[in-house]
């Protein structure tokens, strides 16, 4: 056994056994972040905080939720919302956080795209990020089933139906996923399991991978400048803080993160207390009824753009387009053929590509919600094609990009 001296403080005692000083140095004090970044780089921290809110509020909800098709609706809407002290607060926090986390994820993703933070060594950050996006989608969808309202039931029906893969008619697969011919007790139970156990576990592991992937390439900066981190760190440690291009993660960057988080929390709690309807669809306050199809079935807002890529096409091409939209973001680091790491607005055609993609996805989102009739179908179809064409064109646009 190793030799241990008598420790003179708790810190020293822990340090002997867990090397906490080294950990602190490596993970915080001498984890170097570029100075030339803006508040968009705090979105990762905002996401971590929001995930924390989801976990904590979820644990409270779990104390009273009943995963049973006869009890689920009332356990949420009566027991939690009205009987349990502050149950309503946990529920509203959980529901609003689930929606807002996607807003922040989209901001975070588009920040990465805008600044080119997915290439030259940062591919794994991007890919682990996309895995997080997919896992969060599964987490959100499974959570949406739990109150067993009309939208839970019918969205569950529509989405699981996609797995029949159109003309392949894999109805056996759909039944296998549901555990029944239609959503029922088996269905609710397995989505409960996914939501409170498997998906959170996967997400936590992926967050670890995402953070790990950041370690070697470091985060990007506002000009895409390549920084010699060792050189700059030396300047900083020598006391030349003003000149050094890097700062410590803690407390330098953290203090800014916390300020951004505090502003975010004001926004978040404003929504929780006074503006929660956007995150808690009214239709889901009607109990699930398999005999009564709601007049409009639509997913939560953050799935609308991909839903709209599915909808305007005939069945099979629609599914292919949908599949395309689900995987294509993963390939971004490889479809962008330009070696430039720079903000989009300095990258010629890519700037147009970026802004068109953003606006197109917003158009798709809105068209995904309104009923697919007349003009709306046309706009949706055009926007879906624009999305596909943009991605097909990306390698050609970026191939001949001038070096910046």
């Amino acid at each position, binding site marked *: 056994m190793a030799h241990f001296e008598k420790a003179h403080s708790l810190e020293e005692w822990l340090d002997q056994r867990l090397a906490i000083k080294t950990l602190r140095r490596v993970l915080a004090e001498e984890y170097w972040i570029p100075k030339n970044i803006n508040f968009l780089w705090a979105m990762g921290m905002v996401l971590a905080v929001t995930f924390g809110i989801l976990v904590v509020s979820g644990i409270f909800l779990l104390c009273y939720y009943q995963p049973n098709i006869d009890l689920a609706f009332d356990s949420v809407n009566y027991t939690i919302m009205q009987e349990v002290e502050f149950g309503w607060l946990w529920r509203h926090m959980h529901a609003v956080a689930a929606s807002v986390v996607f807003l922040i994820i989209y901001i975070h993703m588009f920040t990465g795209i805008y600044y080119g933070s997915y290439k030259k060594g940062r591919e794994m950050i991007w890919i682990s990020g996309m895995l997080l996006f997919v896992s969060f989608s599964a987490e959100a969808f499974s959570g949406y089933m739990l109150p067993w309202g009309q939208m839970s039931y019918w969205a569950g029906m529509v989405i699981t139906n996609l797995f029949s893969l159109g003309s392949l008619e894999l109805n056996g697969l759909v039944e296998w996923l549901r555990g029944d011919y239609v959503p029922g007790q088996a269905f609710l139970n397995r989505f409960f399991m996914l939501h409170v156990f498997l998906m959170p576990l996967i997400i936590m592991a992926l967050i670890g991978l995402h953070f790990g992937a950041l370690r070697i390439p470091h985060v990007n900066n506002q000009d895409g400048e390549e920084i010699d981190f060792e050189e700059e760190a030396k300047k900083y440690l020598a006391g030349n803080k003003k000149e050094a291009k890097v700062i410590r993660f803690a407390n330098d960057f953290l*203090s800014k993160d916390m300020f951004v988080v505090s502003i975010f929390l004001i926004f978040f709690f404003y929504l*929780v207390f006074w503006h929660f309807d956007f995150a808690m669809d009214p239709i889901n306050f*009607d109990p699930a009824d398999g005999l009564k199809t709601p007049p409009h079935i639509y997913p939560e*807002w953050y799935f*609308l753009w991909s839903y709209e890529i599915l909808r305007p096409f005939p069945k099979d091409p629609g599914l292919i387009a949908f599949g395309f939209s689900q995987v294509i973001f993963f390939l971004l680091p490889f479809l962008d053929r330009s070696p430039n790491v720079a903000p989009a607005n300095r990258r010629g055609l890519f700037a147009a590509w970026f802004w068109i993609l953003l606006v197109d996805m917003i158009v798709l989102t809105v068209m995904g919600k309104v009923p697919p009739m007349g003009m709306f179908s046309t706009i949706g179809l055009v926007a879906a094609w624009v999305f596909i064409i943009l991605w097909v064109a990306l390698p050609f646009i970026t191939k001949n990009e001038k070096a910046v």
Partner: protein
Amino acid sequence: MKELKILAVVVFFTLLTYWGVEPYAHSVMHKHIESKGFQYDDLKPLAKKGDAARGAQTFMNAGCIGCHGLKSQGMPAPMDPNAAVASFGVNPPDLSNAGAVFDAKFLANLIANPEHALMVEHKFSKAGRSFPMTAFYGLGGDKDQEVADIVAYLQSIAPKAEEVTPKMAFETACGRCHAVHYDKWTQIGERPKFKHKIDELKFEEKVVDYQDKLTKYLGKLPPDLSMYIRSRGEHYLKTFMEDPQELLPGTAMPRVGVSKESAEKVIEYLADVGDSKRAERDSVGKIVMIYLFIFAFLAYLWKQSIWKELH
């Protein structure tokens, strides 16, 4: 400052998306209807001034109590809910509060021609069924005057508007058709606490029997309204109550003819049941906001103190 410009871009696209998926999409999906203030303009105005004393007599002679109870005047319902539902398809409501809950003009029209006032002709006379509440044909005098007298009588015995609680308004106007199980309300009355399982089962049997017959009468069991304040919202409830046909053409739900104040009370009742923590939400919200502003201010000071050495 550059960061503020970036923030403006982020906020702009966020709001644009929000506007598209919420206000805009909902305006496309749902017909928007404004309340007409519960004026019931399609109904015949009250031509005569009623006399409550005379109305008491007219009321007794009109035969209303052959079907309705008037508990506040010591006249219980002639039948219990299950017997009533067997005869009429629905239990005629107790009229003790009718004068306060229903609009006066509506009441007069209801007495003279119930089907028309309730807007259910498409389900009854026009569908070859007769409506269970018989119209009042008059006692031989001036019919308009007699109707006005009955209305005046019902108003005179009803509690004052401010004494009508939200729950009373709901029971009189909606309670015979809609259950509200978060408030233990069933169509045959409040669900009591039971000592013996057998009593509970007996009660349950009565509820189910009532609901079965009501379903036959209306073609559909009216939904439990426990969470309707959240699933439909105040505006929808209000305009739907005022004129169900406009929002759900062909529906069996009658226009119940509540006055404007009573409509607000019904909504308050549904909010008390389905959104009982709204006051607490508001007050806790304010405290949390104050806390967060202090937190943000301190976070700002911390950031400034650290970053002044970095720039």
